[in-house]
């Protein structure tokens, strides 16, 4: 698949968000059907991922985390190889050694994915340092959550990137939850963007459920990072619509909160807008639905037909 950034028009953005949603729904379906590896879905956060990645160039690097499907698919990852990785198959991006939690796809510039919350923050400055030192073009985008912002490494990473003038676009997806803990329980501030000031870094919070607003903000932020070679913190204000991981466990979620965010669903909002503008009609939407569903069905078939890694793989790839 091509990276969304090569054609970020509203319809393309919509289709890519629908593709991400279809991918996540497929995983949810597997769980509803029975035993399946735990996965953290990005349902509700599609705009935050797709909008940012749409602002990037091929030479840019992306570091992401455990909730990475939107970032990967927006970057053009093959959902078949992603699902194969989730299922631990040899055809996965990491030969099945990673599983869902830390899918890297170096060929797409999605590097060093870590499921250690904060791992992406600890690695990003070094990736940017290498670019700067080796004279390579491009910036580094680091996706992390509001929970990761509570880890000490957030403080260390932003401070170093600022002191060393490293081209890192930090993107905090503030989805109001940190696994089983509400963001409000973990910090007094509502927003994380203002924390950048401590490091002499600029920042901005954008409506993370409005994909066009996210794209605009990310494009502006990325342009500034390219131009200044200095880091920037972009916060996407969004919401995790499901429990921390599948299988879904609504027991600890907050019904009022879910209800309040439901109308802000990023796909719903863009479809409504495009319909109002006469850019899509129900038929077109159904066609889109069908197209992304087909892509994901084929991907699932590929993954399920893929072999598990050979036992000889157990202790390979440990040392270079």
């Amino acid at each position, binding site marked *: 698949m091509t990276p969304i950034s090569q054609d970020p028009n509203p319809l393309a953005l919509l289709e890519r968000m629908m593709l991400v949603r279809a991918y996540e729904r497929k995983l949810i379906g597997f769980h509803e059907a029975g035993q399946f590896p735990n996965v953290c879905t990005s349902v509700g956060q599609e705009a935050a991922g797709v909008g940012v990645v749409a602002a990037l160039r091929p030479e840019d690097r992306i570091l992401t985390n455990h909730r990475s499907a939107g970032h990967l698919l927006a970057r053009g990852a093959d959902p078949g190889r992603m699902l194969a990785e989730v299922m631990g198959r040899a055809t996965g991006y990491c030969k099945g050694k990673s599983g869902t939690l830390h899918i890297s796809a170096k060929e797409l510039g999605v590097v060093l994915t870590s*499921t250690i919350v904060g791992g992406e923050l600890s690695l990003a400055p070094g990736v940017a340092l290498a670019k700067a030192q080796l004279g390579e073009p491009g910036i580094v985008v680091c996706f992390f959550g509001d929970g990761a912002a509570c*880890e000490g490494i957030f403080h260390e990473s932003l401070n170093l990137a600022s002191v060393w003038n490293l081209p890192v676009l930090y993107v905090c997806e503030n989805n109001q939850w*940190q*696994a089983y*803990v509400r963001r409000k329980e*973990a910090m007094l501030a509502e927003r994380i963007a203002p924390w950048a000031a401590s490091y002499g870094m600029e920042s901005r919070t954008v409506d993370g459920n409005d994909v066009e607003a996210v794209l605009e903000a990310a494009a502006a932020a990325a342009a500034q990072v390219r131009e200044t070679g200095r880091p920037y913190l972009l916060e996407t204000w969004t919401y995790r619509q499901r429990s921390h991981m599948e299988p879904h466990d609504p027991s600890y979620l907050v019904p009022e909160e879910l209800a309040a965010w439901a109308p802000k669903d990023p796909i719903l909002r863009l479809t409504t807008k495009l319909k109002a503008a006469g850019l899509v009609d129900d038929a077109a939407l159904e066609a889109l639905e069908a197209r992304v569903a087909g892509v994901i069905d084929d991907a699932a078939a590929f993954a399920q037909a893929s072999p598990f*890694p050979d036992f000889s793989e157990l*202790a390979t790839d440990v040392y270079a």
Partner: protein
Amino acid sequence: MTQMNAFEAIGHALAEEMARDPRVLLFGEGVATKQKQLLEAFGPARVRNTPLAEGIIAGTAAGAAASGLRPVVDLLFSPFLCFAMDEIVNSAGKLRYISGGQFEFPMVVMALTGGGWTVGAQHNHNLEAWFVHAPGLKVVMPSTPSDFKGLLKAAIRDDNPVLFFTDIGLTFAPGEVEEGDEIVPLGQAAVRREGTDVTLISYAKTVHTCLQAAESLAEQGVSAEVLDLRTLKPLDEATILASVRRTGRLVVVHEASRLCGVGAEIAALVSEKAFDALKAPVVRLTGPDAPVPSSYPLEQAFIPQADAIAAAALRLMQTPEPVPA
């Protein structure tokens, strides 16, 4: 006697100790959400969610322990301990000594590890040997629900920092648990099966693998004794040495990687203190020197298997015995 799994046994141990001693409190990322019944029973001051920050969770536990509380912290999965090593090792483990004995650190650090959930190498890394190596700490890793309960209660009552590891592969396995206040003292291994020809020593999930191996060995006429260490520090040297002195043969088994693991310590202990009783080489069956893969078949292959244990024991039976001069 009631049936429960390891998670339930841990819940019972926590509830009983918190009811017994008001200084005991529990905190960690999501514990107040996940342990609803404890929250309701003991209130938000004693059952706390924390921000996502392992370092300060462990450091706060150490500071509180030195100041009169008896904290239990849940750091979720063992690789996350890597964000709390300073607080556990440099503070909780050393500040009693550094201060010339001015402080005590009665605290428990809990973490999950081991194969079973295909969570991969950043959620599954058997690190228990690190804490055995570091001074001032104790290390527990149970294999049965009743030990989960009895050892956790003992750990909470101990005046030292105790690392309490839960093997993911055992979390939902049911077992008989005593009602009420049964303590399993730290530092005591359990003989899970008596035997005369060879000793199989393990801990956590692989104790059960050793018991399977002992079954098949019995069918082949070999009598295997199975030891469950239960506490990795302090080690029950007496029970280990007594068994090897009886059998003269030893296979040590664990899921953790081989190099400088607990198996190395036991092999070294035996080759120094029971050398004269040894009839054959000391063999270790362990995880490889590799991160743990996520893919289910590989994750399972990472763990020592019963047939390999039995085969190793049989090989030892065939080694010609040295005869003392």
